[in-house]
């Protein structure tokens, strides 16, 4: 028995960062908005308080803040010829759940993509020729430019209070910042974080090598800050429990500390938690959404009619929602036709460990999620790829986020994996090792995609999302090249031993890499190669907007959050100023 509820103006699927921002803007503009969150409500007080919040076993190992994969997970295979199996324990990537979504357990690393990234296909053709890449690589332009998004990046950073140092203010290069960044209209809202010792070692060595180190932009704040919504944040205390954890200090910018206090006071907004959306409902002509159907924690089924439906969940779940709802043509890797699930991309993560003598004391536990020092000299298209045979790159940095005892024990290659020899090596190297992160771009290629699994279903009987993914050769070449450059920095730092660990195939889902899953509902100018238009509006169903990293046509060299935030404000602005005044297609197909 489905209970039909009173119609509202807007229903939002997922109340994480994207959902909170869209809801706040539209509720403030006078629309009746319902936010449906499948997880639990949770707030800094009482849910994120010490000492329980620093329980490494509970949060790091047992992943207490993540999507419950006993009820809902993805299936995985490397290639189309294999049978995908369910991911029964999150390792490679960690989708969150609950109010605030994955943003609650992020690290606060807040980069902008570069102008080049948004026009990657045309810029690559122009610089390296049309035949530079394999036809299997399906990079494409975003349909928006950096200039379109700049005001929205700016707004998002000021919402978060991001701590950093500008490198390019309105075209003028600023000493101490990232000289490769695309021009920003003003500096970061708060000054950069304090530099830790490994960051200082990295900066000195990178400078000597003629590279351009700068402080990592951080949304764990360097000082107290009141954002434009009037919400106050505190300064980070460098406790070393950021990623996989929630912040007890109101110092990490997450929905609970930047916007929910304002949103939840608005009577135009209603938050409903424990609501598992089953599908977006379409009318009989299949050209218009009529609302959504969801099941609450008591197992009751509801239909929530709405004039506008916004999917604002984690990238993978946005893709699945469209597939479950029959919105857009599913992608078929055999023919290359179809769009939903196409251009799934990830992030190509490598690392370098630099082992020092015992008189060099690193104190790795003295860290926040984003207090490192890094370079962009080998990121994006900041270096000439003509002779290299690949595109893309990675940032390289001493950006280690913690020294937590269960998970952090760097040891040199050749160390036994267990037993006395391993224990001795951990004790010897724990406090005398610098880990570099090499955070690489990811190109889409024809066979990598997302679709519905033919076999496995979730706790509500709906097909799981199936991921088919392996690293493209392009990205493995990139990882090898940039990791070699990073090894040079480790040596220049004076390390006794430097171990480079470039990412190698095949992709494995059982080893943590990063939670930067992108694509599957990509944006663009052509309905044949994109699911949503440049305003993140579905080409097929104009009253459905799909917002999140699922819109990225490919992934760049940096963490995606800032770009998701910029896209959110960009799309929200189009909703407020165009769509809701005159509902219909914002771009004609």
């Amino acid at each position, binding site marked *: 028995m489905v209970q039909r509820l009173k119609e509202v103006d807007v229903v939002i699927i997922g109340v994480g960062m994207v959902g909170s921002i869209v809801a706040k803007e539209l509720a403030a503009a006078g629309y009746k908005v319902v936010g449906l969150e499948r997880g639990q409500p949770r707030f800094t007080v009482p849910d994120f*308080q*010490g000492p329980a919040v620093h329980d490494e076993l509970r949060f790091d190992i047992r992943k207490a803040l993540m999507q419950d994969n006993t009820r809902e997970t993805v299936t995985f295979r490397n290639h189309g010829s294999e049978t995908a199996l369910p991911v029964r324990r999150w390792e490679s990537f960690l989708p969150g759940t609950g109010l605030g979504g994955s943003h609650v357990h992020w690290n606060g690393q807040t980069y902008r993509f570069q102008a080049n990234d948004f026009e990657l296909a045309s810029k690559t053709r122009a610089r390296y020729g049309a035949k530079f890449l394999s036809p299997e690589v399906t990079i494409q332009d975003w349909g928006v430019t950096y200039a379109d998004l700049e005001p929205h990046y700016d707004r998002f950073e000021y919402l978060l209070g991001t701590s950093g140092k500008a490198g390019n203010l309105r075209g003028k290069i600023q000493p101490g910042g990232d000289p490769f960044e695309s021009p920003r209209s003003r500096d970061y809202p708060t000054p950069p974080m304090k530099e830790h010792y490994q960051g200082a070692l990295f900066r000195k060595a990178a400078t000597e090598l003629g590279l351009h180190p700068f402080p990592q932009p951080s949304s764990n704040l360097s000082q107290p800050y009141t954002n434009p919504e009037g919400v106050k944040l505190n300064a980070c205390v460098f406790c070393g429990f950021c990623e996989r954890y929630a912040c007890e200090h109101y110092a990490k910018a997450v929905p609970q500390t930047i916007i929910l206090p304002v949103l939840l006071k608005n009577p135009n907004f209603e938050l409903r938690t424990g609501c598992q959306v089953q599908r977006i409902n379409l009318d009989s002509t299949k050209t218009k959404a009529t609302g959504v159907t969801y099941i609450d924690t008591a197992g009751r089924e509801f239909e929530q009619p709405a004039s506008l439906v916004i999917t604002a969940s984690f990238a993978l779940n946005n893709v699945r929602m469209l597939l479950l709802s029959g919105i857009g043509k599913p992608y078929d890797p055999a023919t290359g036709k179809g769009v939903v699930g196409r251009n799934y991309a990830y992030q190509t993560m490598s690392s370098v460990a630099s082992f020092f003598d015992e008189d060099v004391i690193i104190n790795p536990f*003295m860290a926040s999620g984003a207090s490192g020092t890094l370079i962009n000299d080998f990121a994006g298209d900041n270096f000439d790829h003509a002779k290299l045979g690949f595109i893309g790159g990675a940032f390289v940095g001493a950006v280690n986020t913690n020294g937590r005892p269960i998970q952090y024990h760097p040891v040199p290659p050749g160390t036994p994996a267990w037993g006395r020899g391993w224990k001795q090596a951990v004790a010897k190297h724990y406090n005398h090792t610098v880990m570099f992160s090499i955070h690489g771009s990811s190109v889409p290629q024809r066979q990598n995609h997302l679709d519905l699994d033919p076999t496995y279903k979730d706790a509500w009987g709906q097909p799981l999302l199936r991921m088919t993914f392996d690293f493209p050769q392009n990205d493995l070449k990139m990882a090898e090249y940039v990791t070699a450059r990073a090894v040079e920095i480790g040596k220049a730092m004076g390390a006794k031993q430097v171990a480079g660990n470039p990412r190698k195939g095949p992709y494995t889902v059982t080893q943590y890499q990063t939670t930067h899953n992108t694509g599957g509902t990509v944006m663009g100018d052509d309905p044949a190669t994109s699911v949503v238009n440049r305003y993140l509006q579905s080409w097929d169903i104009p009253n459905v907007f799909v917002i999140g990293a699922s819109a990225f046509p490919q992934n760049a060299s940096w963490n995606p959050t800032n770009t998701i935030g910029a896209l959110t404000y960009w799309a929200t602005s189009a909703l407020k100023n165009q769509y809701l005044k005159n509902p219909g297609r914002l771009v004609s197909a």
Partner: protein
Amino acid sequence: MRTLRRLPELSACLSRVACLSLVFAVPALGAVAEKPMPGDAGRGAALAVACQACHGAHGEGNPAGGFPRLAGQTTDYLAGQLRNYADGRRASPVMAPVAKALDAQKRADVAAFFAEQSAPYAAQSVHPTPGQLQRGRLLVRVGDESKQLQACANCHGPDGSGERYAAPYLAGQSAAYLANAIREWKAGTRHSGEKQMGPVVLRLDDQDIAALSAYLESLGEASH
């Protein structure tokens, strides 16, 4: 290959203790770059005579007089506070001349003496209502989301029992002293630890301050 073993010009953060100070942005130590000096409790015993009239023979404090308990706080914390009184980061007509009369070594010595003490708790000076105890316990253990106010326990340990090297214990501390410290941060007259404590205390009203300090003082008695 050039080696970079030590880079003092790059970072003040070479010694383990100085690093910890920076990491936890030690609320009460004020400036953090100064490398703590090891103290000698034996030498400190002789110097402590000047302190004992107010702070008690073993640093048990005098809650009724608002003189804080010193017994068992860390040497670094206590020496840091003496330095703060000496250079005016903390204003006190009583403590300033005492602290100024001690050089850095003597401050460390007397601090080491009190750090080693383990004294019974002095009699409670306040008699909180059940409502105050409940409010105080909530603020110490859980915080108050309506004020975006975190629990004291995040930095000061479970029930204010202290986080060694990072933050002093508050449990069993004189309520009058605690309330005064909070008011000084609120008024902006205390220039040590203000970066961490400043934003927190702004969220406390007079009733919260009374409840919080009374609850914390009551924990001394409870521990017996």
